[in-house]
Structures are given as structure tokens and as C-alpha cells.
């Protein structure tokens, strides 16, 4: 079939089949090569959504938090995530007890953070809700870096946490997350390292 192949593989001393082989192929293949277009299969690796929850900042109490996040699933286990969140700081004990004196203005009490995380699906599986409903779910851990800005200063932040993702439908997931944001803060005189916990509940959409 392929004269090219036979030529290179056949030992030169074989002579029996020479008559038929050296002649031109009996049937010229009349195949019209079709241009094959790669079928387009939609990729669905992005997950975008938002969360609501509570962020506790050392000395400033626990306050409401809203954040937005974008997740990209790199492999079946690993995902990359970017989060942007906003919260407000409460009063410190010092401010409450001293009466009028304020450490921060209202504008400075606005807290914003971003983190860049890498996540790992630790325990993928199914969650059974009642007798009739089954949802795919996964328990995951994340770690990342970012910055937290409040009181007119940014703080380099290391974030470690975990969460639970339950797929309500093919394209929508509910998340429950607990994370700790670790940063150094020198707002109250000395520099201290604090771990600031957040707990959130959120919805994401795959596309």
C-alpha cells in the first residue's frame, strides 16, 4: 500500500516479489481529502460569584463582609482564585472607653482586600440532601497572598483557609468558606501579627 514504507523496510536481497512491486500501484486512490474542522467543544473552567459573611479584624470587632471571586479550574484537583472583598471596621475598645477620641476617620474604616489563591480539592464526593436529592460536592483547602487596606495603609496578607462547594445544578454552586487573613498591623503603636478570620456563604456560576 505504501511504497515508501516498503522500500525502507524490505531487505535488499528479497527478489521474489519484485515484478509486482516495482510497477505502479494497480489502483490509484481517488480519495478527495476532506478538510477536517476541529469540532468546537465548549470549555467550562471558570467559576464567578460572590459571597456574604463576617470578617473579624483584631481590635476592631466583627463586621459584615461582601466579596467577589473568580475561580479557574486548572486540573480536576487544582484551581486558581482571585478574591476582592470589602468590609468596615468597628470601634476599638479604646475608642469605646475613652469617649470621644477616634483613631480612624470614617473613610479610614473602610476595609478592602484582595487575595490570589491556589486551591486543592481535598475530598470530592456526593452530598445527600433528604432521600431524593444528591449533589456533587468537594471539600477544598486554599492558600494565597494578597493585601488588606484600611486606615490609609496596605498590609501584606497571607491567607489560609478551606471551604465546601456543593453543585446545586450543572452550572451553579454554593460555597461555605472559612479563611484566616494574617497580616502585621502597627496602627495601635507596636507592630503585631494578627490572624483575622472570615466566614462566608456564597454562590458561584460556572461558565
Amino acid at each position, binding site marked *: 500500500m505504501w511504497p515508501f514504507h516498503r522500500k525502507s523496510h524490505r531487505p535488499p536481497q528479497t527478489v521474489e516479489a519484485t515484478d509486482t512491486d516495482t510497477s505502479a500501484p494497480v489502483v490509484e486512490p481517488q480519495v478527495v481529502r*476532506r478538510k*477536517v474542522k*476541529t*469540532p*468546537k*467543544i*465548549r*470549555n*467550562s*473552567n471558570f467559576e464567578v460569584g460572590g459571597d*456574604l459573611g463576617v470578617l473579624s479584624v483584631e481590635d476592631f470587632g466583627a463586621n*459584615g463582609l461582601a466579596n467577589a471571586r473568580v475561580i*479557574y*479550574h*486548572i*486540573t*480536576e*484537583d*487544582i484551581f*486558581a482564585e*482571585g478574591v476582592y472583598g470589602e468590609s468596615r471596621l468597628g470601634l476599638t475598645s479604646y475608642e469605646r472607653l475613652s469617649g470621644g477620641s477616634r483613631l480612624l476617620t470614617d473613610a479610614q474604616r473602610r476595609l478592602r482586600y484582595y487575595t*490570589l489563591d*491556589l486551591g486543592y*480539592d481535598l475530598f*470530592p*464526593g*456526593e452530598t445527600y440532601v433528604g432521600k431524593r436529592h444528591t449533589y*456533587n460536592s468537594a471539600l477544598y483547602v486554599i492558600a*494565597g*497572598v*494578597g*493585601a488588606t487596606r484600611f486606615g*490609609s*495603609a*496596605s*498590609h*501584606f496578607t497571607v491567607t489560609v483557609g478551606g471551604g465546601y462547594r456543593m*453543585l*446545586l*445544578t*450543572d452550572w*451553579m454552586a*454554593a460555597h461555605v468558606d472559612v479563611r484566616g487573613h494574617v497580616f502585621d498591623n502597627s496602627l495601635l503603636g507596636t507592630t503585631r501579627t494578627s490572624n483575622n478570620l472570615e466566614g462566608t*456563604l456564597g*454562590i458561584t456560576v*460556572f461558565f
Partner: protein
Amino acid sequence: MRKLLKLAIAVLLFLPLLAHAAAPDDRRRFDQDSGKYVQVSVADPYLELHIGPGRRYPVFHVIARGETIQILYRRTDWFRVRDEHDRVGWARRIDMQETLLATGEKLPLERLDHRDLDSYPWEAGGQTGNFGGGNVNAVYLSYALNPNLSAEIAGEHTIGHNSDSEMFLFGLAHAPRPDWRVSPFVDLGTGVIRVYPKTTIVAPPQKREVLGYYGVGVKWYLTQRFLFRADYRAYRILTNRDQNEDRNEWKAGFAFFF
């Protein structure tokens, strides 16, 4: 706060109901959607369907050789497929590779032995490290012009003792041996830096200056599309004072192709 929480719970409970309330139709979804999705037939003795897109999700069904399936979409290396009986599950990429199109050809998928630039020309990543003594966080997006050369845009945020800064950069990176698992590269670029001094007494005006950089780095391909990247860069900030400022930067992080 309480209102928000109530709203969140209400949304959480209500949304799945909405999604389930699809109009009933007697015909199979498989027939309704024929032509909408790529259809392939199973050529291996069987094709396993998992309940989720991962090897650790259990297999719930096996499709026999010769049956036709529709490919709904893909997530990482898993394909969501529907069989002739409207069963929907997830099939592995290496199994899908052996399925046949109506023309008799194998389903064309990107090559596994090296980075497929046609399928994944983009690279995105995040890094952290040290820029001129301060902590730096960086994100970048890069487009491969050819296997060796890529164009990159990046945003970097530095949190220093005396000042914070934000940089927006554009550069070109050249990798002499992109086929190596640990592949070195050199890069060259330019951008702008905006410096925010941290003094609280008087707020000096923000400074915005042009800079240039060159650097060397290494990419370590951990999986097909996931990599570790570390690099060193030397920056020169072109100030309008008598002297230009030089900064060194070290950073490391992770990236992926898409």
C-alpha cells in the same frame, strides 16, 4: 446585616428550585439537541461515566462500544456527555480520545506531549516576592506569539515600609528551550510606576514615573497546563530628578495555560 443574611439564605434555597422547573417534553433530550453538540461513538470496549469531573468521583454507568454520545462541554480534562438514554455523566479525556466522529475519524484533541499553542495560547499567573525591600504581589497575562516568544502584561502591587507602589508593565519574554520541563527565559519590558508615600503627617503628591526592566527566570511545568515560575528582575526608574533609581525584584508563584 441580618437582612443581608436572610436574603442570602432565601436565594440559596430558591435558586435550585428555579433550575429544576424546566418544561417537560416527551422526546429524549438526546434527539432534541442533536446537531447542537458534537456527537461521537464509543470505539473502545466501553466508556465509563463518572458522577463528577474527577477520577475520585465514582463511576455510575458504562457505555458500550458503538453507542453514540453527545459532548455537552468540557471542564479541565473531563467531558460532560449525554448518552442515547439521556444519562449524563463525566468521561475522562484519555477515554474520549478514542471515540470516533461520524466521519470515522478520532475526536481531535490537543496533544499531551507538549504545550499545544493552538489550544492554549494564554498564560495567567500570580506571584509574590520582594521588590526593593517591600513585599510585592503580581499578576500577569501572557500570550505566546510562537513557542519561544511571548508578550506579557502585568500588574504589581508593592507594600513597603515607607511607601506603597503600583506598577503596570508590558514586556516580552524569550525561552530558548520551551520543550524542557524546567525552562529558563529572559525578559525585557517597560511600564509605569505610581508611588504612594506612607507618611501620615503631610501627604506628599503621588509620583508617577516610567521604568524599564530586564530579567531572567525559570518556568517549571508541573502538569500539562500548570507551572511554577520564579524570576529576578532589575528595574530602572526614570525619575525627573538628577539620578535614576534602581530596584531589584525577586518573585515566585504559579501560573496556568488556558
